[in-house]
């Protein structure tokens, strides 16, 4: 159902996208063709007009010369001669007497239109012979000759119209070709673009349908789409990892908290069934409260880990004097170590300051110290009974080392002990939640550092490496 809707939606989107892209192409191409043709029309007609005007100017000069040499009669003869030659070029002549009555020429009457700034008159042509195709307008120059005669020499605009006609035809063909090409090009381009999007959409739908392992295929061309696909895939990998992590944590919580909850329930159940007297009942309730407290502690530890892993405490990072912090931890744990008969060896070094969350760092170091003391055997037979806490530097990073001579952690288990609730078989009988090292690792990551576990032969050497500079 949901898939169906998505698919219909996709089709509409695809259609409109394709259409719009093509339309944009079309408009752009057509506009450029129009501009191109407009410019050529303007230039071509301009050139033709200038050429005609130059011819007319030359003609006028020639006729004026003839007139001055041969007089009116000579001029009329010349004009008649020109017209007899059957000039088809559209030349216009008219010689009129002082009252503007035509004497010679191929115009029916004198045009009285107002000449423009350059002395040119534009006038309509009344055509006596409709079979001869002529332009509807003429352009001419007018002269007043000595003796009161008027001379008009001009040209019809047929040439310009012809040019305009052919350019318009070219324009129509050009536009048709452009529209065709841009429709096809736009369609092809948008189709190939949308095919890329389709790959991504296809994968997204498969993932939404529940197949988290699907990835966007890459064309291998290394273009922007491949980069986008690679980024999406990296994001999906990250999400898959996080989801798997959450699942693992949820499973562990469900599994590991069921046991103490079951114990709590059984205890209360027994207290109810055994019909105990007041004291035994109180005893059972007291123990149930202890169980509940233990569960709450576990939840608090989980919350602390979750908080550190969320990265939220980074907002409140402040300079933390690690030297003072180590001294505080020593203050807190020295009596505990001594109580157990362990030597507490401290090397506070020259101190170091990093930006961080003091409370979480304190808790991390305290957890390491707590483990070291808890897993150290009391030196009953003069064995090596000591634990140590040292602050040093490693390049730009601060290094807090906690070591003991306890049983240590086998090499193949060192990655696993930082998982939530993971406990070594050997340590199942000792008190603890299996969350201590998970928190230390989370705090290290929060500070851009890491927790390294190594063999202290014998024992465990835990190193908390915290870079001074924060990203």
């Amino acid at each position, binding site marked *: 159902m949901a898939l169906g809707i998505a698919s219909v939606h996709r089709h509409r989107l695809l259609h409109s996208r394709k259409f719009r892209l093509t339309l944009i192409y079309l408009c752009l191409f057509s506009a450029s063709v129009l501009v191109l043709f407009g410019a050529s029309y303007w230039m071509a007609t301009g050139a033709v007009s200038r050429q005609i005007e130059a011819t007319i100017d030359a003609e006028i000069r020639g006729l004026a010369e003839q007139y001055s040499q041969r007089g009116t009669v000579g001029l009329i003869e010349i004009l008649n001669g020109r017209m007899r030659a059957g000039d088809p070029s559209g030349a216009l002549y008219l010689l009129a007497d002082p009252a503007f009555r035509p004497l010679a020429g191929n115009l029916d009457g004198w045009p009285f239109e107002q000449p423009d700034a350059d002395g040119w008159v534009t006038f309509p042509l009344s055509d006596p012979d409709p079979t001869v195709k002529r332009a509807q307008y003429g352009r001419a120059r007018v002269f007043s000759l000595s003796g009161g005669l008027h001379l008009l020499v001009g040209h019809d605009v047929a040439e310009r119209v012809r040019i305009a006609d052919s350019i318009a035809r070219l324009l129509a063909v050009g536009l048709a070709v452009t529209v065709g090409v841009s429709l096809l090009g736009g369609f092809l381009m948008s189709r190939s673009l949308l095919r890329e999007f389709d790959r991504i959409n296809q994968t997204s739908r498969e993932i939404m349908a529940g197949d988290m392992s699907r990835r966007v295929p890459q064309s291998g061309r290394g273009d922007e789409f491949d980069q986008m696909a690679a980024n999406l895939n990296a994001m999906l990998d990250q999400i898959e990892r996080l989801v798997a992590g959450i699942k693992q944590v949820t499973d562990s919580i469900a599994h590991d908290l069921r046991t103490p909850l079951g114990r709590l329930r059984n205890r209360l159940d027994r207290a109810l069934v055994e019909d105990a007297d007041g004291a035994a009942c109180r005893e059972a309730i*007291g123990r149930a*409260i202890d169980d509940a*407290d233990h569960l*709450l*502690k576990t939840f*608090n*530890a989980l*919350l*602390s880990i979750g*908080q550190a892993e969320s990265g939220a*405490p980074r907002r*409140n990072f402040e300079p933390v004097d690690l030297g003072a912090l180590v001294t*505080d931890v020593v*203050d*807190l*744990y020295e*009596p*505990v170590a001594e*109580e157990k008969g362990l030597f507490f060896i401290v090397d506070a070094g020259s101190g170091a300051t990093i930006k961080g*969350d003091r*409370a979480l760092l*304190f*808790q991390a170091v*305290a*957890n390491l110290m*707590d483990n070291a*003391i*808890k897993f150290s055997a009391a030196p009953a037979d003069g064995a090596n009974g000591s634990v140590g806490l040292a602050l040093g530097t490693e390049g730009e990073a601060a290094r807090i080392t906690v070591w003991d001579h306890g049983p240590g952690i086998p090499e193949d288990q060192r990655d696993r002990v930082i998982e939530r609730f993971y406990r070594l078989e050997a340590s199942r009988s000792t*008190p*603890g*939640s299996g969350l*201590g090292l998970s928190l230390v690792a989370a705090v290290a990551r929060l500070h851009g550092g890491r927790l390294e576990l190594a063999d202290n032969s014998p024992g465990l050497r835990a190193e908390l490496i915290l870079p001074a500079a924060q990203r």
Partner: protein
Amino acid sequence: MGIISANPGAGQPPRQGMDLESDMRILVIEDDAEMAGYIAKGLRQAGFFVDVAEDGSDGLFQAVREPYDLAIVDRMLPGLDGLSVVKALRSAGQQTPVLFLSAMGDVKDRVDGLRGGGDDYLVKPFAFSELLARVEGLLRRPVASRPGTVLRVADLELDLRSHRVARKGEPIDLKPREFKLLQYLMEHQGQVVTRTMMLEHVWDCHFDLQTNVIDVHMSRLRHKIDSDDHPQLLHTVRGIGYCLRAPS
């Protein structure tokens, strides 16, 4: 009586001055009726007068109108939240000590609460004994906060200025942290002090420690101040914490 009085073996009640507390009034501002009832019932059994307000504006109204010796305020309240209630209370000139209750336990929330006018902060869920110990601590705070004096419990003396400690005139050598711990206990003499309270005030440490580290420190301190030929001053209150008090 609450859990504290169930402590047998003590020559006198672990808290001094029941008569002093019997007319002390406490306002509980908490929207969760079950939680409010739990707190109110426990405090009444311990001898306090308790009023409950179910939301922020009611609580603020009541706190301004009537003089209370202490207010217990939930951070998360419908309408006006706990922090705003306390800020309003403080800007109205009310200096009633405030104990915040909150389901939010991280350091920033705590700091916000204390900067916003709270005097102490307790994260839910909590043991009632923890709440009671803190309530009593807050009600006695003015006595404890006089600086530059000599604190006394029976023949035990702690000089805040010279940092010297003596029992029956005999000097006792304490490490700096032990001095701080004893000072805290003496400031709260006669009251039960929980392990969490000591961790918070002496070590500035706001989380659960995996083992009972505090007990080791207390046994050392006890060893130094309560030697065999003196009457015992430092008492363990089972399941709750410790209490430093003069013998009756």
